[in-house]
């Protein structure tokens, strides 16, 4: 079995978000980590390999320094790594990204493609399903549990109030939730090997069946008007009234804000 895992290097948002004056993310000021949902996808792939035997390839698109996230994936146990990097691919939104990844994936054999549900920097949850559309294969998103049986995947897809159990024929694409598993740590020996391992590099020329008009900033229909960090809520207003007066007060406030 061949599994390809799409991973993304994202800024660690744990310590808050930093912006450039133009409103884009100041990635240099923030630590880069493997996107948590993607890491769960990688762990799921590695567990399938441990259980059934498989070859796990990780692939990412980004600046040359995105290689670090591939090294981390290999130190966790991934067998092969591919970095897609090219100036013409810069500034890509989800459409241009999924077009690029699909173009790269057309070079590879796969039974299963794993992606994370969404990245913590963009939070769109679009790239995984878009890739499946480009490649014409089924997608099951929001996987919270995953198994394989005779050429099929059986997935628990999370819903707000429960889950669906879905079965799909491979090849297919699955988007993983961070809750899917607890990813393993790298091993010291894995790190030593990964630092020496060869990483395949793709550029625009390696992408199959893609139009330049769908790549990079120019191929991105999304335009960002403005971006901001989470707006901190104020401490609110405290009033101490008897129940009847409280109800009247709340109604007045809600009316004032046109909520009712």
């Amino acid at each position, binding site marked *: 079995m061949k599994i390809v895992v799409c991973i993304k290097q994202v800024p660690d948002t744990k310590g808050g978000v930093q912006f450039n004056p133009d409103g884009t993310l100041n990635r240099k000021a923030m630590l880069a980590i493997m996107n948590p949902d993607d890491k769960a996808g990688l762990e799921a792939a590695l567990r399938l390999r441990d259980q059934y035997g498989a070859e796990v390839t990780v692939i990412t698109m980004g600046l040359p320094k995105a290689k670090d996230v591939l*090294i*981390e994936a290999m*130190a966790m146990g991934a067998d092969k790594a591919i970095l897609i990097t090219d100036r013409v691919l810069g500034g890509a939104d989800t459409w241009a990204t999924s077009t690029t990844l699909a173009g790269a994936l057309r070079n590879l054999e796969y039974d299963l493609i794993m992606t994370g549900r969404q990245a913590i920097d963009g939070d769109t949850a679009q790239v995984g399903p878009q890739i499946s559309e480009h490649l014409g294969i089924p997608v099951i998103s929001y996987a919270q549990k995953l198994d394989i049986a005779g050429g099929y995947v059986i997935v628990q897809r999370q819903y707000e109030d429960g889950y669906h159990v879905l079965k799909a024929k491979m090849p297919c694409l699955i988007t993983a939730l961070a809750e899917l598993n607890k990813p*393993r*740590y*790298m*091993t*010291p*020996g*894995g*790190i*030593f*090997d990964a*630092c020496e391992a060869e990483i395949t590099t793709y550029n625009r020329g390696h992408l199959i069946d893609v139009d330049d008009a769908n790549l990079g900033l120019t191929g991105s229909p999304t335009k960002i008007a403005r971006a901001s960090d989470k707006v901190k809520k104020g401490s609110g207003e405290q009033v101490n009234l008897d129940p009847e007066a409280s109800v009247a007060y709340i109604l007045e406030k809600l009316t004032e804000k046109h909520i009712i």
Partner: protein
Amino acid sequence: MALLLVLLDHYAIVEETIMDFNLDKKHEMARALFQEFAENEVKPLAQEVDETEAFPVATVKNMAACGFLGIPVPKEYGGQGCDTLTYAMCVEELAKVCGTTAVIVSAHTSLCIDPIMTYGTSAQKEKYLPPLAKGEKLGAFGLTEPGAGTDAQGQQTKAVLDGDEWVLNGSKVFITNGKYADLYIIIAVTGIVEKRGKPLKEISAFIVEKGTPGFTFGTKEKKMGIRGSATYELIFTDCRIPKENLLGVQGKGFGIAMHTLDGGRIGIAAQALGLAEGALARTVEYVKERKQFGRSIAQFQNTQFQLADMATKVQAAQMLVYRAAKAKEQGGSYSTEAAMAKLYAAEIAMEVTTKAVQLHGGYGYIREYEVERMMRDAKITEIYEGTSEVQRMVISADLLK
């Protein structure tokens, strides 16, 4: 001119081997891994491990799964194939949050795996290294006896060859990982030899498996620090082990023990270093928060000067520890480097943790604050695997030889 070139060449080599303290990418990544593991998996348990004196069985299993119990073991024997520096960094990072967990890894790796790697026959390596390196089995080392600590010639435990078996009688005390370890390197007297007209004990080393009839455990010691580490007495009563469990050459056990302790000192030096670093980090956080006389105590010059001294000594200790680890990796003797690293790191660990407690004031004396535990944990680093006095003997013996 030729001489100058030779000299320049010589300096270039010295520069490269001793002065390069920049860690490469793989060591940086390994440190990040150890740090993440220590923060997430070890730190939350450290206080409980200390309070209950419970050996952290689950943590050991967890570390085994991550390969931490076979870091310097070649891949062909199931290890990680990394170097001594990586191993020392692992012990250091663990000790930053838990002295107990750090010494479990150190005793297992330096005192059990290392002598088997260095002196074991191929059969012994094939049999014992894979389970040790994968952490399926835990290792320990027994040299110290009630009447023989630093003076290894005072050994009383005897091993007598009887047919195809060695018969062990005697006892060992203060054995780290005791009872929980599956494999023990045991030092015993195998006869008397004459050297320069004087009778001298012939000492040999053995591999003894837990569960061998006649091998039992005595009392568990109650300690000041590293309270979760299991420290037991080992008792051998007509304990018969196969002849092939002799480690190395018969009569060379003293050298094996001393060489093993040289390596062990790098592990303990790394543990001491980690304790000092951990205490310094907690103190830096604390002095910024603690307010007295209307300002944080970090604003007092006394605090600033104390912290500056602590940080400088920690940095110096780290250089000595890494240098010793690199010296071991390069082969040849590294006794002096290891002794210097252990001596200095242990002494500054005691000093830094004591100052950390002092800067915490009354809170530093309360168990809830980690520096209290770190100060108790630090004391042992000046004592075990050769006291600071023994390290001074080793260092000066090298100077005066």
